[in-house]
C-alpha cells in the first residue's frame, strides 16, 4: 500500500464514522458495508467482504440509543481491512488466515473507539452551549455553524480510532503473526465460523422477543435437517 491508499482509508474511516451517528445513518458504517468499501478502494473488495462477514453480527445487538456508546465496529472493520491489505503482504501472509489475524487484533482495539466517541460528545457539549447562546443573541447562523462543527469532532474521533487500530495493530501483527499464523492455519475454518457464531449468539441473546429460543431452535433444526436430507 502506498501513502495515497492510507489517505483514502483515512477518508473512508471519517465518512463511515460520521454515518454511525452524526450524518444520515444510512448504515454504510456497518462492517458488512464499510469493510468491502475499504477493500474495494484499496483494490481487494473480497478481503473486505470476508472481514465484514466476520464482524457484522458481533455488536449488532448493541443499540445506539441515547447516551449508550457501543464499541466502534465501523473502525474495527476499516482498520482490519487496512491491516490485512498492508501488513499481510509485508509478512508474506495472504488469504483467510491473515484476515482472521487482522480481525482478532482489531476487535479489542475497537474499545478505543468508545473513548474517542465519548470525547467527541463532550466537545459537542461546549458546541451546544455556544450554539444556544448564539441563538439567544439572535444569530441563527452562529447556531448553525456550531451545530455543523459537531461533524468535525465525530470525524476526528473516527479517524483517531482508525489510526490507533492500524498503528497498534500493525505493531502487534509484526510481533505476533509469525508465532500465531501456524495455529490460525490449523484452526482456520473453525475460527472463521466461531466469530460469526459468537456474533449470532450475541444477537440472539440481546433480541428482546418472546419465543426467541423456540423460533431459533425450530429454524436451526429444520434447516439442518433439510440440508442433511436434501
Amino acid at each position, binding site marked *: 500500500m502506498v501513502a495515497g491508499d492510507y489517505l483514502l482509508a483515512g477518508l473512508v474511516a471519517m465518512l463511515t464514522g460520521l454515518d454511525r451517528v452524526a450524518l444520515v445513518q444510512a448504515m454504510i458504517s456497518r462492517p458488512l458495508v464499510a469493510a468491502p468499501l475499504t477493500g474495494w478502494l484499496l483494490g481487494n473488495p473480497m478481503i473486505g*467482504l470476508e472481514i465484514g462477514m466476520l464482524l457484522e453480527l458481533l455488536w449488532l445487538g448493541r443499540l445506539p440509543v441515547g447516551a449508550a456508546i457501543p464499541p466502534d465496529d465501523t473502525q474495527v472493520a476499516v482498520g482490519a481491512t487496512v491491516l490485512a491489505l498492508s501488513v499481510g503482504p509485508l509478512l508474506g501472509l495472504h488469504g483467510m488466515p491473515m484476515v482472521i489475524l487482522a480481525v*482478532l487484533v482489531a476487535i479489542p482495539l475497537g474499545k478505543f473507539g468508545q473513548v474517542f466517541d465519548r470525547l467527541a460528545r463532550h466537545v*459537542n457539549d461546549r458546541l451546544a452551549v455556544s450554539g444556544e447562546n448564539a441563538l439567544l443573541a439572535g444569530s441563527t447562523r452562529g447556531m448553525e455553524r456550531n*451545530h455543523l462543527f459537531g461533524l468535525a469532532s465525530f470525524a476526528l474521533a473516527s479517524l483517531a480510532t482508525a489510526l490507533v487500530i492500524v498503528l497498534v495493530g500493525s505493531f502487534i501483527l509484526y510481533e505476533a503473526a509469525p508465532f500465531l499464523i501456524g495455529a490460525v492455519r490449523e484452526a482456520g475454518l473453525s475460527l472463521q465460523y466461531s466469530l460469526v457464531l459468537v456474533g*449470532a449468539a450475541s444477537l440472539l441473546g440481546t433480541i428482546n422477543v418472546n419465543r426467541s429460543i423456540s423460533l431459533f431452535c425450530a429454524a436451526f433444526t429444520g434447516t439442518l435437517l433439510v440440508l*442433511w436430507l436434501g
Partner: protein
Amino acid sequence: MKERGLSWLTLTRMYLRSFLLQASWNFEKLQNLGFFYLILPGLHSLYGDELPEEVCRRHGGYFNTHPCFAPLVAATVLRLEARSLAGEDLAVDVETYKSMVMAPFAAMGDALFWGGIRPLAALIGLLVASQGSLWAPVVFLVLFNLPHLVLRGGGLLLGHMQGLNAIETVQKCRLPDLAIRLKESTTILIGILCAYLSYKGCEHQSLSVVWGFVLLPVVLLFAWMAHKGVTSLFLVLLTTSSLLLLALLF
C-alpha cells in the same frame, strides 16, 4: 388570520436537514441544536428572517427522539406554530406536544429500526455474502434504507398535512407490532444462518451432519451468556483462545 403553509422547497430543505439532526449530538441536551437546525427553514417561512427570542428559547432546549421520526415531529411542531401564529387556540401547545411525543417516538423508532429492520437486513445481507457475492452490502443498504428514507419523507408530509392528527395515523400503523414480527423473523434467520454454517463446517471436516446439532446447545449457551451481560469481546476472546490453544496442542 389565515394559517401559513410551508412551501415544497422549505419541506425539501427540512428533509435534507433531517440527515444532519445528530451532527452535534451531546450529553447535555442531546439533539437540541439538531432539532432547531431541522425546523429553521420552516421557522423562517413563518416568522421571517428575524426570529422572536421566545421562539428561539422554545426550540433551543433539550430534544431527543429517533432520527427517522424527527421530521414527523418537526413538521407537526411547525404546523402548531403556524396555527398559534394565526391566533387559533391550541388544544396542546408546542412545548407540551414536543415533550409528550419525543420519548414514545424514540422508543418506537429504536425498536423498529435498531431492533427490527437493521438486524433483519444485516442477516439477509450476510446470507448473500456467505455465497461470496459482493452484492451483499448493496442488498443490506437497500433493505434498510427503503423504509428509512420513506419514513423520514412520509413523516414530514404526514406532520405537515395532518398536524396533531398524525399521531393517530401513526398509531393505526401498529409499528410496535411490526417491530416484534421483524424481530421474530430475525430470530428465524439466525437459526438458518447457524445451521448453514454448521452444515458447511461438517462438510469441510468430512463429518456426518449429525455432529452439526452439537452447535445448537453451544450457541444457546453463548446467547444465554450474552443475555446475562457477558460482552461479545469476552466471548470472542474465550472461543478464539480456546480454538488456538487446541490447534497448538493437537
